[in-house]
């Protein structure tokens, strides 16, 4: 029968188990992943099973790398994720965190838009490092994503997004994540997308400053194509700053909603 060993088609005898295959092809592999799940107990293989064998700490060669990176992705779902294009407007606390989560998922393509450079005050909540200070956020994030998963296609656009150009830059994206800081920019982007791009989903965010309860951050479905994440009240202001935990909770609500939409789940 046919199985996929490190994503390559091989024929094994019926009745072979995962560990038997390991012992014959890569006896020193200490991580055995069957259909996206790491197994500790030997399991009988079935037709079309996906088996991945990894030796911990071994740096894989380039050909193997992509196959190993997808090994924890759920087969069947990953193909949809790999074909998805998501646009991210603003690469601050929301945008950089959502982008990194989507990159870890092995998303097909990200369109990253921001005009700004990384500065020291960003590091309290954004995904950048000291070495990125002064660099365009688009370039810094491209570098970070490349270090996580070089097979994610990244398109970067260094402009100030406004209602005249939003449509043009996000043409390819099925889903747009609104990740701006300024409330007027958030509203303008949302109004523009909802009135002009009738075929796209928008996942926006409002209210994630401070250290209020985790559980006040929610995803709401406002219309068929418009989702809003946040507690809707916690504004960033003097005495109530933005901090990494709540901003990344909100960003990952956005990333998970994008993933759900990619997989056809439109409910919150």
């Amino acid at each position, binding site marked *: 029968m046919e199985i996929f060993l490190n994503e390559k088609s091989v024929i094994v005898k019926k009745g072979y188990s995962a560990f038997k295959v390991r012992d014959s092809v890569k006896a020193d592999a200490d991580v055995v992943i069957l259909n996206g799940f790491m197994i500790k107990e030997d399991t009988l293989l079935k037709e079309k099973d996906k088996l991945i064998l990894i030796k911990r700490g071994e740096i894989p060669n380039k050909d193997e790398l992509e196959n190993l990176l997808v090994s924890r992705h759920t087969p069947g779902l990953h193909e949809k994720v790999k074909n998805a294009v998501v646009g991210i407007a603003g690469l601050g606390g929301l945008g950089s965190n959502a982008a990194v989560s989507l990159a870890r998922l092995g998303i097909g393509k990200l369109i990253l838009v921001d005009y700004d450079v990384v500065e020291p005050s960003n590091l309290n909540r954004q995904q950048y490092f000291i070495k990125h200070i002064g660099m365009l956020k688009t370039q810094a994030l491209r570098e970070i994503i490349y270090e996580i998963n070089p097979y994610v296609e990244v398109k970067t656009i260094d402009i100030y997004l406004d209602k005249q150009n939003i449509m043009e830059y996000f043409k390819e994206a099925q889903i747009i994540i609104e990740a701006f800081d300024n409330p007027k920019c958030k509203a303008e982007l949302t*109004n523009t997308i909802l009135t002009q791009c009738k075929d796209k989903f928008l996942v926006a965010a*409002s209210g994630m400053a401070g250290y209020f309860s985790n559980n006040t951050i929610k995803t709401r479905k406002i219309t068929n194509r418009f989702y809003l994440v946040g507690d809707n009240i916690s504004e960033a202001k003097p005495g109530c700053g933005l901090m990494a935990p709540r901003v990344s909770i909100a960003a990952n609500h956005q990333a998970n909603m994008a993933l759900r939409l990619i997989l056809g789940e439109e409910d919150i």
Partner: protein
Amino acid sequence: MIVNGIEMKFNTNITVIELLQKLEIDKDKVVIEINLEIIPKENYNDRIINEDDKIEIVGFVGGG
């Protein structure tokens, strides 16, 4: 009319922009939906809200 789930009554016809002014809401920080349809900002001055309309005002606060 129902505004964000709350019944409201006005003596005269009221436009979207007038409703926002009465509620002291900044028109530049909201998205307005009437009967599940997003109202383009250019129409705020002219769109009259009917008695049986359901209005959702989605406001944005800063931070991201």
